[in-house]
């Protein structure tokens, strides 16, 4: 499906929210007026210098930006090839990149006069980030979370409750992230007057994929400037893990028109792509329509959505943001699968060599670097998004390693 290269890879979506064949607005009619209202409000906010100023203020003073671009010297030595840099999103307030987007969306919600916030969460990172900004801005918050995820991410559930959010367990379907998203959409369709839905990833109906990408692009914009300062040149490769794909698109987008920069996304291959128990929608799925957009999905021959499987609850989703689907199809980015086992090995290696406990999500990207960096020359540079800290994952990892805490 490769088409001729466009003049710019950064010009989409089109006015109807399409990235090539992907994206769109596949939602129930009840939600359409809300989505159109949101689109207009976002356009207005984007054009308003006061909005940008407000956003910058909170990113700096509340989130703690800018965060460092860190040279992972010992990991680089160990792998013996390309120089490896980490964009340290783990050092943000709440410990992950998710808050960048939440700040943007809650400021927009306030602008629109909305008085109630809902969100879905998988690993709980987006739920925590949403609960955090809701506490800060004084809005009531309801977070939908699959009952399976509530079990495996109990520290984050408690965190959300401490922050004053109501965490609603979702027991429909497969009890995980996709079902939490269904339930959040059901809430929204019921509470159309006052509610703003803060979607956590660069997916869903237009304008969410564009809006979330824009809010997360602070990652790539900073990283681009920082690598120029550190190395006086652009990296040879930018790499990030993809679940829905918001940290990845945030890192990638500012580099898409830099022809010399290779773009690599890393998917969760769970027990292995061949086993059918994975979350690798780009490697093993096909285009379909779910949660408001057309994108690569895991499904059966009848178009029924399959359950995803990954040790990382944050990647455990059977779809992917539509812009990634487009980048894959036109060949601007490549996407590689990494298994639970490989991610665990990377989690350990990074902890031991760098003194950084990475989230299981971005451990997938580290695992891909372990494969690629040794084959690259020492003059090459890899820039990775270290999207979150791994403290939340210690129970999962301990269990996988057979350690009793």
């Amino acid at each position: 499906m490769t088409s001729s290269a466009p003049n710019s890879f950064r010009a989409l979506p089109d006015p109807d929210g399409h990235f090539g064949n992907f994206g769109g607005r596949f939602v129930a009619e009840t939600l359409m007026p809300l989505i159109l209202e949101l689109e207009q409000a976002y356009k207005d906010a984007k054009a308003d210098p006061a909005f940008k100023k407000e956003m910058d203020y909170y990113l700096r003073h509340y989130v703690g930006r800018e965060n460092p671009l860190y040279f992972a010297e010992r990991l680089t030595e160990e792998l013996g090839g390309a120089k490896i840099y980490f964009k340290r999103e783990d050092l943000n307030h709440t410990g992950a990149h998710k808050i960048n987007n939440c700040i943007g969306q809650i400021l927009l919600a306030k602008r629109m006069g909305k008085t109630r916030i809902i969100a879905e969460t998988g690993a709980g990172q987006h739920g925590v980030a949403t609960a955090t900004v809701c506490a800060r801005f004084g809005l009531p918050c309801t977070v939908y979370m699959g009952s399976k995820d509530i079990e495996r991410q109990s520290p984050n559930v408690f965190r959300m409750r401490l922050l004053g959010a109501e965490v609603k367990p979702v027991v429909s379907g497969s009890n995980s992230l996709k079902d939490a998203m269904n339930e959040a959409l059901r809430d929204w369709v019921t509470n159309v007057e006052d509610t703003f839905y803060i979607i956590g990833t660069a997916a869903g109906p237009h304008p969410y994929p564009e809006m979330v990408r824009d809010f997360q692009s602070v990652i790539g914009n900073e990283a681009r400037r920082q690598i120029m300062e550190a190395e006086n040149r652009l990296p040879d490769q930018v790499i990030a893990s993809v679940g829905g794909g918001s940290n990845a698109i945030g890192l990638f987008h500012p580099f898409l028109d830099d022809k010399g920069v290779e773009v690599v996304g890393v998917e969760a291959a769970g027990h292995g792509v061949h086993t059918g128990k994975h979350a690798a929608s780009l490697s093993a799925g096909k285009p379909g329509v779910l949660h408001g957009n057309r994108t690569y999905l895991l499904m059966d021959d009848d178009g029924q959505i399959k359950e995803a499987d990954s040790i990382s609850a944050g990647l455990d989703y059977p779809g992917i943001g539509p812009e990634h689907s487009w980048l894959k199809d036109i060949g601007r980015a490549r996407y590689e699968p990494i298994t639970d086992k490989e991610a665990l090995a990377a989690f350990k290696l990074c902890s031991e060599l760098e003194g950084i406990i990475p989230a299981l999500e971005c451990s997938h990207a580290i695992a891909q670097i372990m494969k690629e960096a040794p084959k690259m020359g020492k003059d090459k540079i890899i820039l990775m998004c270290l999207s979150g800290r791994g403290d939340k994952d210690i129970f999962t990892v301990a269990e996988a390693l057979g350690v009793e805490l």
Partner: protein
Amino acid sequence: MSDAIIGGQDRIAKRFAKLKEEGRAGLVTFITAGDPDPETSFEILKQLPEAGADIIELGMPFTDPMADGPAIQEASLRALAAGMHMRKTLSIVRGFRDQDHDTPIILMGYYNPIYIYGVAEFLEDARNAGVDGLIVVDLPPEEDAELCIPTVEKGLSFIRLTTPTSDDKRLPKLVQNTSGFVYYVSVAGVTGAGSASNEQIVEAMGRLRRHTDLPIAVGFGIKTAAQAADVAKQADAAVVGSAIVSKVAESLDENGKATDKTASMVTGLVRELANGVRNARK
């Protein structure tokens, strides 16, 4: 050429013309294809017209029915667990058409299973099976090129959902490219939730009438014969879904399997609802 290939718009138009002649509103009943299993749902389907259904909405099961409440979600999952899929749904319609040439059948569901089937092939097969129209919840007019336009070109109706959020600005866009009837979702919410008041329905009907001459069916939250009768006083048809599907659930044994009461419990409720609708304007 069999009767099954009569253009779908005709069958719906004829049915509403007949209702008008009889001076009453119609009853639109929803069941999920394959719920609780393909055979039982086929039995229920065949008995619906006799029980008083004027138009039938047949749900196409989907794993992620985002606009549906628990009752219809569970019906979808029961059907899928019993091995239901799109080809079987169409074959159930074909079986129904062999014996009933007049009752319109509208397939209702979500876009992905149709998209994966292939739009052109799906429309061909649906039309040949005797389907009259489609309601696809996650295809607003902004996505008309996907399925709505090809459906209308095929001679089938594409029935649109209008909602309390559909204002005078939005409605012209909604009634464009639509045919058969307009479905008014009387509350903002998922299927099976609360119902709208009479005043709200009257207000909405007035708004809709300013924008379309098509018949208007009103649904969401109608559970009893009395509620159906109230709606039937205002609208051209009353739609009942979750309450009927809940009867299926109620009738199952402890293993979730159909019992000999399943079909009769469903048709029993449909009979009550039909009574309500038929006597509403008397």
